[in-house]
């Protein structure tokens, strides 16, 4: 059963990005989304440490210690970029001025809640900006593997880990499927070219409503 690899997953999510969008991408698969934004589409990538307009990584000659992204990596800016303080950055995020955020998750549940910052009993590194992003972005998309390494579903009736946010996720894109959140829980919109609808159901702990227009993921 062929599942989407990380790059294909990112490519599918890139279809959610629209011209003129302000987008914040989290660490991991979400990062890869930027590689698939079509040329000619004007999109500004936000970095919560105070930049709107992330550009490519620098060449050796252009490295600037004063210019980093939220992952503390050296970066450059694109034309039209702007710098601002952290309070201004989170005013932008919390105030609904970011059109889309894409984040990774350890668990998502049918109430649209997400857990991605803490595993009790293990090391806690902190939530960073994730709680603000899920509370404030206009659209919240989760990019994740459908199951953990042991094969257990990460798409749950109820999250077991401490939450990052409650009732905030709009869409989940996994290596098996595209799921939308509704008042009735998860709706299966699309499935990966490999697995059948029954395979997706079997891999999902939460109940799934099958959209009448469900189809295979297209790129």
């Amino acid at each position, binding site marked *: 059963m062929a599942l989407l690899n990380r790059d294909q997953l990112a490519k599918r999510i890139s279809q959610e990005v629209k011209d003129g969008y302000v987008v914040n*991408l*989290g*660490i*991991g*698969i979400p*990062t890869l989304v930027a590689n698939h*934004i079509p040329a000619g589409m004007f999109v500004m990538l936000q*970095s*919560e*440490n*105070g*930049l709107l307009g*992330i*550009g*490519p*990584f*620098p*060449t*050796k000659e252009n*490295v600037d*210690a*004063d*210019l*980093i*992204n*939220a*992952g*503390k*990596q*050296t*970066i*450059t800016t694109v034309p039209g970029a702007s*710098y*601002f*303080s*952290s*309070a201004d*950055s*989170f005013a932008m*995020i*919390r105030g609904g001025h970011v059109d889309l955020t894409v984040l990774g998750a350890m668990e998502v549940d049918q109430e649209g*809640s997400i857990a991605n910052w*803490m595993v009790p009993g293990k*090391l*806690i*590194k*902190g*939530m*960073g*900006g994730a*709680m*603000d992003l899920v*509370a*404030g972005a206009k659209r919240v998309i989760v990019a994740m593997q459908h199951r953990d390494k042991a094969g257990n579903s990460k798409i749950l009736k109820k999250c077991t880990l*401490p*939450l*990052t*946010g*409650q*009732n905030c996720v709009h869409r989940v894109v996994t290596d098996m499927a595209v799921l939308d959140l509704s008042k009735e829980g998860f709706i299966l919109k699309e499935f990966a070219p490999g697995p059948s609808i029954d395979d997706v159901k079997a891999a999902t702990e939460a109940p799934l409503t099958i959209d009448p227009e469900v189809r295979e993921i297209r790129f």
Partner: protein
Amino acid sequence: MNKVYPNAAAAVAGVKDGMTLLFGGFGLCGIPENSIAAIRDTGIKNLTCVSNNAGVDGFGLGQLLEKRMVKKMISSYVGENDLFEKLYLSGELEVEFTPQGTLAEKLRAGGAGIPAFFTPTGVGTKVAEGKEVREIKGRKYVLEHSITGDFAFIKAWKADKFGNLIFRKTSRNFSPNTATAGRITVAEVEEIVEIGELDPENVHLPGAYVQRIYAAKFEKRIENLTLTPSTGDPKPGISQP
């Protein structure tokens, strides 16, 4: 008026055991590295330190942790510091995890005379436990209290002798917000110019928020050097997996 101090040691004078100290910076970018080193050398203890991150082992706030000067950290993310982990797990260090935007707003509000505010961030999570949650216009918000400090330490690019500051690129981050929330705010800068030399249109933080200034040299350590590969298309500079 003289806000210009000769060096870091003079500029941090007055810090004492048990104080709440605020620090600007994100990761190692824009941290007040010279003030931190000078505070380390004072040997004071039982500090509450407010900073988005906790430095790395041996640099930034990591140095205050090494000398066991910190009783409590208020931060949003501390993943880059092994000693932090050890002190936290052994109970030697208390940590109050605060969402990054809430932390920035606590400082902004603290400096703006607003004692508390309602935010949607963290509703329904551990962060909201024990705090008032109020429904306003159909949505739930958690009451968060602002932060002020005995001292605030920040780093800026340029200052004039009144303390008007200009920051450079993303090294601005928390610094303007942190600066407003300190009873005494100490700015270390790369260059001090005469009053009148900074264009008023381009001042990022007015001098009213700054009590002490000194010029210093900066290591500006890079935490995560990432380059565009010399072959192939440049990739957008967002965090790699």
